[in-house]
């Protein structure tokens, strides 16, 4: 008979508060096969784990049940504890009597009864557990970075410096991401391009880094250490090997189009590079607006190109590569505040967003750094800044705070003061949040030295009056409505996830939250990992954050990836499917079910009725199988069993719970 030990945790008062842990331990002794049961204040603590190790030796236990918190939290912890006590870590089950019991059932009596049931369930399952071994698989020592913003570049550089080849896949024609659009960076006001472009150049020149710009990830197959990733290299219509980036083509190109990079404030040609310091500095033809593609005429760029690099016949190219780790750093979008009809965006050209303002003050921007009103290019005297547009607003926008608006609005006010002498800035705010190093001091200087007028209140309406914009709001500190005549209004829009974030998450098989930001494995303990092994996160794609945090996360994600790639062999999980070949009839219905293509047919020969005969049976590739178990239900005869969650174990749990 098995010798099971049950260990009930108090978790301080988290469990002991609403579950009578002593009674649970006492009842556990009566369960079949349980030979030892005790309770302790903190099972997961060092002394707690020692209690388990001692009990294993003293009562020579061969199976352990811990009744404490969620296995998603401490299952690995207790498995390691068992391993150090010389026991197979898979002869272990947890009963979740905290999240699923003590924290949600105030009635102590009923909570205790439920806890006892959960422990009986775990004990019934552990009796059926068999020792399992992890199998090891090889690792492709190569990383893929999706998104070439500052976070992506930093990750690529760190991994490349560690000696592993990295590929950056960037949707836009150039890397640089959002940061390239920004003029100055708070709090030190050093110029964004000055700190970004060297990194971009480092990335382009680093021997270990390959940049695939104007490309997207099409399909991701395989699993940690062995991802097969199909990348679509969109047709640039320019032959990268021949093009020298001389710029003749985009000078001669007759077609002018609104530049997305300049947020529509400036123009670009049909054949263009988004901004001068683009890396790779090779143009792309915008096939939607280029007359050659629209009606077959023109083709001037091809004529004037000295190296004949322009090639209209170029098609999308699909390449499939093997990678060991993936880091997602696809950045963020600005909140589309058209829902706030009252702010008049779209009706009044002089009501612009933060990024528009960044393009205006940028030296390589459409106005060569001079702040001019988009409507009549006059220099504005009075500029009003409106914060929390779309943030902290569950009704119309996003419930969260976008963390960066307070700081970049203060920066904008500082720059308005510097660039337009005698100008006046007003800032409508709810709160001013300055969580970073030197942030509060920077905000103080803006308010005091640069006389930026902070008004605590929300803006209710903006309307045009003559060539002025009337900004009506309320100053909640003095409790009076306020109306300001402004020449220009800058809205600090919320940071939201990319619109295709959901599709990318599905392609990668990672989960995402209600705002489409990618979900980290654990908010506090594993912020840069996802639940899908081998896929890591960096930057704003995981949640709103500023450049310092993004770069810090980039370093963390890179170290995780390096940690994975530095191993020669990787242990694949022991929870995999297993075929009982003597009973398998080879119908292969399981093969069509497996999402990882881990099941295939194999021919075995055996002696039937005196002569050797061949027969087809299913075979599970233990390294591909991720242990989802969908195949076990499709197999009618029950020859496919998922080790760790076998049919017998789950049936035992069902019976124990219904006792």
């Amino acid at each position, binding site marked *: 008979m098995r010798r099971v030990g049950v260990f009930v945790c108090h978790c301080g008062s988290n469990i002991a508060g609403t579950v009578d842990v002593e009674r649970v331990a006492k009842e556990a002794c*009566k*369960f*079949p096969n349980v030979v030892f049961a005790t309770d302790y204040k903190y099972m997961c603590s060092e002394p707690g784990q020692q209690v388990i190790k001692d009990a294993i030796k003293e009562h020579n236990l061969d199976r352990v049940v811990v009744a404490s918190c969620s296995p998603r939290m401490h299952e690995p912890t207790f498995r390691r504890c068992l391993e150090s006590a010389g026991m197979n870590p898979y002869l272990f089950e947890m009963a979740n009597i905290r999240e699923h019991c003590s924290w949600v059932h105030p009635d102590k009596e009923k909570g205790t009864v439920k806890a006892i049931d959960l422990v009986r369930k775990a004990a019934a399952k552990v009796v059926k557990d068999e020792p399992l071994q992890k199998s090891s698989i090889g690792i492709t020592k190569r990383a893929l970075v999706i998104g070439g913003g500052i976070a992506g570049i930093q990750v690529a550089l760190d991994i490349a410096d560690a000696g592993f080849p990295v590929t950056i896949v960037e949707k836009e024609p150039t890397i640089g991401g959002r940061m390239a659009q920004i003029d100055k960076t708070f709090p030190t006001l050093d110029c964004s391009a000055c700190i970004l472009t060297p990194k971009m150049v480092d990335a382009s020149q680093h021997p270990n880094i390959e940049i695939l710009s104007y490309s997207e990830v099409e399909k991701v197959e395989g699993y940690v250490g062995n991802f097969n990733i199909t990348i679509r290299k969109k047709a640039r219509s320019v032959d990268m090997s021949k093009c020298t980036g001389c710029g003749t083509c985009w000078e001669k190109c007759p077609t002018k189009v609104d530049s997305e990079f300049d947020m529509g404030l400036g123009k670009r040609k049909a054949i263009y590079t988004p901004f001068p310091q683009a890396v790779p500095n090779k143009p792309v033809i915008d096939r939607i607006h280029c007359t050659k593609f629209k009606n077959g005429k023109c083709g001037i760029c091809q004529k004037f190109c000295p190296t004949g690099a322009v090639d209209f016949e170029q098609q999308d190219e699909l390449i499939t590569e093997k990678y060991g780790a993936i880091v997602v750093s696809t950045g963020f979008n600005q909140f589309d505040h058209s829902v706030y009809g009252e702010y008049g965006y779209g009706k009044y050209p002089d009501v612009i967003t933060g990024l528009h303002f960044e393009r205006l003050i940028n030296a390589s921007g459409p106005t060569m750094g001079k702040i001019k009103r988009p409507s009549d290019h006059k220099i504005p005297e009075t500029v009003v800044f409106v914060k929390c547009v779309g943030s902290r607003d569950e009704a119309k926008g996003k419930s969260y705070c976008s963390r960066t608006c307070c700081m970049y609005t203060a920066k904008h006010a500082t720059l308005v003061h510097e660039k337009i002498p005698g100008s006046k800035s007003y800032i409508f705010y709810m709160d001013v949040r300055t969580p970073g190093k030197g942030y509060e001091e920077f905000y103080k200087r803006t308010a005091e030295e640069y006389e930026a007028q902070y008004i605590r209140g929300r803006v209710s309406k903006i309307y045009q009056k003559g060539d002025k914009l009337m900004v009506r709001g309320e100053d909640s500190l003095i409790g009076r409505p306020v109306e300001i005549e402004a020449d220009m209004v800058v809205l600090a829009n919320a940071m939201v996830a990319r619109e295709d974030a959901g599709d990318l998450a599905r392609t990668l098989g990672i989960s995402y939250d209600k705002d489409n930001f990618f979900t980290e494995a654990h908010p506090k303990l594993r912020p840069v990992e996802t639940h899908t092994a081998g896929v890591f996160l960096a930057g704003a794609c995981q949640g709103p954050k500023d450049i310092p945090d993004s770069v810090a996360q980039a370093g963390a994600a890179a170290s995780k990836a390096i940690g994975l790639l530095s191993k020669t062999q990787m242990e694949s999980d022991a929870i995999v499917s297993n075929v009982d070949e003597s009973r398998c009839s080879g119908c292969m219905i399981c093969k069509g079910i497996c999402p990882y293509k881990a099941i295939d047919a194999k021919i075995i020969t055996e002696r039937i*009725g005196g002569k050797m005969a061949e027969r087809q049976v299913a075979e599970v590739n233990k390294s591909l199988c991720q242990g989802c178990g969908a195949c076990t239900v499709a197999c009618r005869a029950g020859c496919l069993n998922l080790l760790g969650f076998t049919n017998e174990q789950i049936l035992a749990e069902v*019976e124990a719970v219904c*006792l």
Partner: protein
Amino acid sequence: MKTVVKSKISALLDEIAKEFNLLVPTAGDGASKFAPYTSGGQVSLDGRTLLPPKDVFFPQTEKMYKFSTDGMAGSLETLLEAPKHQMLFGVRPCDVKSIHELDHVFLTKGFVDEFYQSKRDRTFLVSIGCNGPAEPTCFCQSMGVNPQESDAVDVHLFDLGSEYGAVAKSENGEAFLQKYASFFNEAEVQLPAISEFALKPDVEGITEKLQQMFDHPLWEEVSRKCLGCGACTYLCPTCHCFDISGRVAGNQGFKFRCWDSCMFSEYTRMAGGHNPRPSKKERVRNRFLHKLQYFPERYGDLLCTGCGRCLSKCPVNMDITNIIKQIREVELA
């Protein structure tokens, strides 16, 4: 001979039901079987029931003992309660013989099965004779059964057309006829002639012949069409193979015995996987040899009373009379 008019039978049954736990052949919806009598209920005294009376004494599932475990300790308690006195009314001679053969198995050879015995000793048997094949598939006459009369009962009723002729076959039978004499009147009777049977297999000397036919290719041919289901064995009044298994729920549990069929594939499979009868050929051969050779060798009777149930319900019309004919036609070297 004492006779009773058929129309008074239901009244007689009402009386009996007061004293006995009365079981009668019913043909309500679903298959015809022996079921507790409900006055005015569906009683069908012509033809034989599809389900044999064997499960009156040897139920398909029967709890033997319950047990409880507590860590290493444990206790068990037999679940043997003798049923109230019961009467099995309207059994056909072929079924009477089958009961007699089950007695061989469960009550002799050194061990007595109390579960069977406790029911068998408390059952008063009343049989009704047939004047010919009740179903087209009947062939009891050729298997040594007198369709009109059976002896190993308490009371036998001859079918005389509009009335029954009652003959006591045991003291209990005598007492029964005394007790219910009001229903009977004395009359001279003339047994009707037994009508012709369609199936007349000749079983003369078949046991001896089969002793040399274990490896004969006949079995390969015969067994090909069998599906290996258990219909024949579960409908057969004489088949008595059973399995012992248990059910555990936490610390409580019980052990039960239930019908099993030698035709099932895992019937003789041992723990290590070795199976002395791995394919249909061995299993079909074993079933017919058990009925026509092994049982006669051991107990003296053929283990087939010619009721024809297996013949009528076999999905592929496996016909024991045809197999007997084929065995007869085989010339041994």
